[in-house]
């Protein structure tokens, strides 16, 4: 999301730069008795003089604007996963590990313990995080999977009280 925001902001900056320059240049052209070169100002002027607040195109535009605004708000205000998480190794400051690295390592450990399609998610804050693992395995494998994930987290020097939640779906059929 941080990268998305950065790209969005760069695009917005570019749009503002181009639009601002276009407005300034077109206004200058009109001021010196010319006609707008790029912006179809006459057409926009004519349609804005005719379009009423109750008209369909205006209502649709307003609805889309409100929806985009709502979507942006939801995306920005919901909690974001941490970019990196702190370990208990090292002092001032403790070593941090990239969140994706932790997720990959947990998935590999779960796969070694027999989980199919493991998907791990690290959530919380960099200093206080938790691990969630989803995958396909039989319920009787749960303890072994949990032990494998815990062992992997220990190898990564995760804080010892890091919460781990495991959600397993049953395989379609038992393979002998």
């Amino acid at each position: 999301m941080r990268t998305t925001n950065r790209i969005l902001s760069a695009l917005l900056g570019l749009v503002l730069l181009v639009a601002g320059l276009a407005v300034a240049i077109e206004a200058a052209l009109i001021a010196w008795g010319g006609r707008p070169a790029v912006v179809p100002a006459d057409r926009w002027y004519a349609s804005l003089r005719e379009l009423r607040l109750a008209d369909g195109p205006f209502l649709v535009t307003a609805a889309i604007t409100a929806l985009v605004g709502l979507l942006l708000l939801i995306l920005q205000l919901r909690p974001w996963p941490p970019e990196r998480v702190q370990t208990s190794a090292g002092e001032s400051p403790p070593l941090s590990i990239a969140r994706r690295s932790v997720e990959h390592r947990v998935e590999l450990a779960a796969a070694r313990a027999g989980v199919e399609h493991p998907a791990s998610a690290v959530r919380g804050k960099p200093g206080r995080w938790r691990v969630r693992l989803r995958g396909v395995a039989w319920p009787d494998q749960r303890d072994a999977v949990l032990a494998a994930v815990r062992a992997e987290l220990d190898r990564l020097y995760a804080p010892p009280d890091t919460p781990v939640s495991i959600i397993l779906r049953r395989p379609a059929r038992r393979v002998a």
Partner: protein
Amino acid sequence: MNRTLWTIIGLVLLAAGVVGLLAGYGALPFVDRQQVLLPPELIDVWNRYRPWSLALTIVAGLLVAVLGLLLLRAQFRRRGGPPMADLYLLPSPEPTEAPQPEGGTGVASRALHRALQRDLESDQQIRDAAVRLTGPPHHPRLLVRLAVTADADVGRLAGHVDRVMHRFTTTSGVQPDVSEVVVRIPAHAPARVE
């Protein structure tokens, strides 16, 4: 910063859209829903102040363009500000028996960066180290990014980083304030060939 910006943009868009919808459906008592978007009164005002309204538009357009440029530039700026300036060591001010040499010693900031990076990479577990010193040369802030081997031991890495910092302070006299050491571990990395 971007998160705040887009939260504000989201709020403004949502408010504008909702007000537009309310006005369009006649729910706002002070707005006639049959009103056109560009009413004749507004056009009158524009024409009455004709040279000034155009001048104002040009200025507003230029302002928006400058804002866009600033926003665009901010996206390409790296974290933590510009890299620290070159270090300049003056002779010790304490009186000594031996005559003090004139002048001082300059150490390029790039040389300090490279020294720190090479020392970090001296450990077999570290494939690639990136360091960034920012702020005042005698007490800079330090950001470290380490790409390590798949079998790297995090505890040993932390010990190595501490020793590198100690060596760096002893040799350069610079005591960095380590603000972050981030480790990246590949998911499927080939074993390192010795």
